[in-house]
C-alpha cells in the first residue's frame, strides 16, 4: 500500500505539471459540451426551396406562404420555368423544387384534385429525406385546411377527420441537445480514461523510465494500480465537470439518481482504463498507441449509438455493438439522465461492464511483463 501511495504521489505530480493534460481535462468537456450539441443537430432547417409557379393564383400564393411560414424552408427562387429552378439546384442554391402546375386553383376547386411536383437534391441524404418529408407534411396539412374550407362551405356540415396528437416522453420538446449531451459526455469519459492511461504508460516505455522502475522492488500490480487510479480519478472529475456544464448550459439535470450514475461510471472507467492498459502493453511508442486508440475510438463512437440508432443497424453491426463498452455507457447515460432509470433497470448493463472491466484488466495484466 505504501508503494502505491508513493507511486500515486509521483503520478499526480507529473500530471499536474503537464499543462496540456490539465488544459485538456478542463477545456475538453466544457468546449465539447458547449459547442458540439449545437452543431451535431439532426433537425434540418434552412432548406433552400425554389418554387416554380405556373398558376399565380390565390391558392398557389397561400401554399407558398404556408411553406415558408413553417420556418424550415427558405425561399431562394421563384421561377417561371422548371429549367430555371434546376439551374439553382445545380448551383447548390436550392435543395428542393416545388412545381405548381398551371390551373392549380381552378382544377382543385372544380375537379377536387390536383397534383404537385417536388424534386429533391439528394446529395445530402438526410437533408433531402427530411426536407422532402417536411414539405409533404406541410402540403398535406394545407390540403386538409382548404378541403375543410371548401367542403364545409358547400355542405355546411363539418368534415369528419381523425386527428392525431402525440406527446413526447422524456424529451417533451424533442430537443436534440438533450439527446446528444449524455452521449457526448460518455465519449469524453472514454477518451480521458482510454487515451490518457494508454499514452501515459507508453510514455514511460518511450522515455525509458520503465527500465529504471523495473529494476526496483515495485511489484507489477503496484505499478498498474499507480497508473490506473490517477486516471480513474481524472475520469470522475471530467464527468462531474461535464454534468455541471450540461446543467449550466442546457439545464439538463439527471432525472435518475446521481449515485446510480456514479456507480456505473466508476465501473465503466475501470474497464476503459483496462483497455488503455491493454493497448499500452502492445505499443512501444506513443505514436503507435495513439493510432491504435484512434482506430478503436472511431469504432466505439460510430458503433456506440451516439449518432445513429443501434436499432436501425444491420444485424451484424448490432452484434458488433454488443462488444462495445461505449454503447452501454451511452445507453445508461440516456436512461438515467433522461428517463430516470433506477439501479434495477440497469443491472444488465452493470453486469456487462463489470465483465468488461475484469476481462480487459486481466488481459492487460497478463500481457504486461517486467522482463522481456
Amino acid at each position, binding site marked *: 500500500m505504501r*508503494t502505491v501511495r508513493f507511486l500515486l504521489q509521483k503520478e499526480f505530480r507529473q500530471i499536474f505539471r503537464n499543462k496540456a493534460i490539465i488544459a485538456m481535462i478542463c477545456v475538453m468537456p466544457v468546449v465539447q459540451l458547449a459547442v458540439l450539441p449545437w452543431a451535431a443537430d439532426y433537425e434540418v432547417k434552412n432548406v433552400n426551396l425554389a418554387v416554380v409557379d405556373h398558376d399565380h393564383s390565390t391558392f398557389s400564393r397561400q401554399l407558398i406562404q404556408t411553406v415558408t411560414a413553417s420556418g424550415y424552408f427558405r425561399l431562394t427562387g421563384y421561377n417561371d420555368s422548371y429549367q430555371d429552378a434546376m439551374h439553382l439546384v445545380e448551383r447548390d442554391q436550392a435543395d428542393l423544387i416545388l412545381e405548381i402546375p398551371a390551373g392549380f386553383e381552378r382544377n382543385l376547386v372544380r375537379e377536387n384534385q390536383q397534383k404537385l411536383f417536388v424534386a429533391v437534391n439528394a446529395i445530402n441524404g438526410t437533408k433531402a429525406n427530411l426536407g422532402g418529408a417536411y414539405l409533404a407534411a406541410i402540403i398535406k396539412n394545407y390540403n386538409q385546411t382548404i378541403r375543410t374550407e371548401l367542403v364545409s362551405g358547400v355542405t355546411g356540415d363539418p368534415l369528419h377527420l381523425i386527428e392525431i396528437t402525440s406527446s413526447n416522453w422524456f424529451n417533451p420538446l424533442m430537443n436534440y441537445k438533450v439527446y446528444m449531451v449524455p452521449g457526448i459526455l460518455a465519449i469524453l469519459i472514454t477518451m480521458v480514461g482510454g487515451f490518457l492511461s494508454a499514452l501515459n504508460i507508453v510514455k514511460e516505455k518511450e*522515455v525509458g*523510465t520503465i527500465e*529504471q522502475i523495473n*529494476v526496483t522492488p515495485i511489484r507489477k500490480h503496484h505499478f498498474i494500480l499507480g497508473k490506473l487510479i490517477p486516471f480513474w480519478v481524472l475520469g470522475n472529475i471530467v464527468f462531474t465537470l461535464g454534468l455541471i456544464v450540461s446543467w449550466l448550459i442546457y439545464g439538463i439535470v439527471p432525472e435518475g439518481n446521481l449515485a446510480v450514475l456514479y456507480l456505473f461510471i466508476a465501473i465503466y472507467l475501470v474497464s476503459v482504463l483496462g483497455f488503455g492498459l491493454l493497448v499500452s502493453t502492445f505499443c512501444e511508442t506513443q505514436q503507435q498507441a495513439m493510432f491504435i486508440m484512434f482506430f478503436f475510438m472511431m469504432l466505439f463512437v460510430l458503433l456506440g449509438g451516439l449518432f445513429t440508432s443501434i436499432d436501425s443497424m444491420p444485424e451484424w453491426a448490432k452484434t458488433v455493438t454488443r462488444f462495445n463498452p461505449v454503447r452501454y455507457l451511452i445507453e445508461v447515460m440516456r436512461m438515467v439522465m433522461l428517463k430516470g432509470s433506477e439501479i434495477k433497470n440497469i443491472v444488465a448493463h452493470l453486469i456487462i461492464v463489470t465483465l468488461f472491466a475484469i476481462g480487459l484488466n486481466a488481459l492487460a495484466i497478463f500481457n504486461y511483463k517486467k522482463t522481456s
Partner: protein
Amino acid sequence: MHAVKLNNLTKVYGKEKSVAVDNVSLTVEKGELFGLIGPDGAGKTSIFRMLTTLLLPDGGSAIVDGYDIVKDYAYIRSTVGYMPGKFSLYPDLTVEENLSFFATVFGTTIEENYHLIKDIYIQIEKFKHRRAGKLSGGMKQKLALCCALIHKPTVLFLDEPTTGVDPVSRKEFWEMLKRLKQQGITIMVSTPYMDEATLCDRIALIDQGKILSIETPENITRSYPDKLYAVKAENMYALLKTMESYEHAASSYAFGEYAHVSFREAISEDTVKRYLQDSGLSGVELRPIDATIEDCFINLLKK
C-alpha cells in the same frame, strides 16, 4: 563468495537467431571495479540487462550477490543498483523528487544513505529544484548515479555511464567510482572507451558477444606479444600505405597522430627509418612504446 558470477550466459535475439551474448563466463569479486570493454553492439548492454533481471537469458546462468537472476529476480531487484545507458529518470520531476522517489521505492530515505551519495549529490544540490530533464548531460549522469546508489546497493551496474559526457565530467565520474569502491560497493561498468579500461581493477574485453580476454589492465597490456612502435611522418596517409606494403610489418594502424606498427621479427629502428625515407616520406619519427588496451584489443580482434 563472488559478487557476480556468469556461467555460459547466452542471449539470442529475433527470428534470425543473432547471438548477442555468446557463452559468456566471468566472475566479479566483492568490492571490485570490473570493466566490460567493447565496441557498440558487443553485447555489453544485453549482459547488463540480464544481470539486472530485465532480460531473460536463453542459455547459461548467472548469480548476482548470491541470487540466481531468473529464480530470485525479486531479491536482485531490491539489492542491485542499475544505471542504464540512456538517461531514464523522470524528466518532469525535479532532481530532489527523483531522488526521494527512488529512495522511497526501495523503502529507504535520502537521509539514511546520504553518506553514500554526498560527494556526488553536493555537486548537483544547487539544482535540486530543477526538473531533471533540464539538466546538462554531466549532471544527469550524476543524478542517475545518485538514484542508483540511494538504496545502498551491494552491486552497482553502470551501462556506459560516460558515453556522451565531456572529458572533464568523465574524469570526475571515474573518481567518484573509485570513492564508491572504497565504500565496499562492487561496481560493474561498461564502456566503449579503451582509455577508461586502465581505471578498472579488472577488465573483460568483449566483441560480438564473445569474451576475448579477462585480466587486470596491466596484465593485458603486458601480455601484448610483439614489440610496438609509434611511427610518424608528415604524410600520414602515405605512411600507412607504405607500411601496409612493407614485408616486415605485421600490423599497422592509425592511432591519433601516430601509426602503431608491429613487426614480424626483431628489426632495427634504423632499417625501418631508412625504408620509409627511401619510399619518399619526410619527417619520419620512430620510437618503441608500451601497448595500450586499445592495441591489445585490436590485436585480439585480429585473431
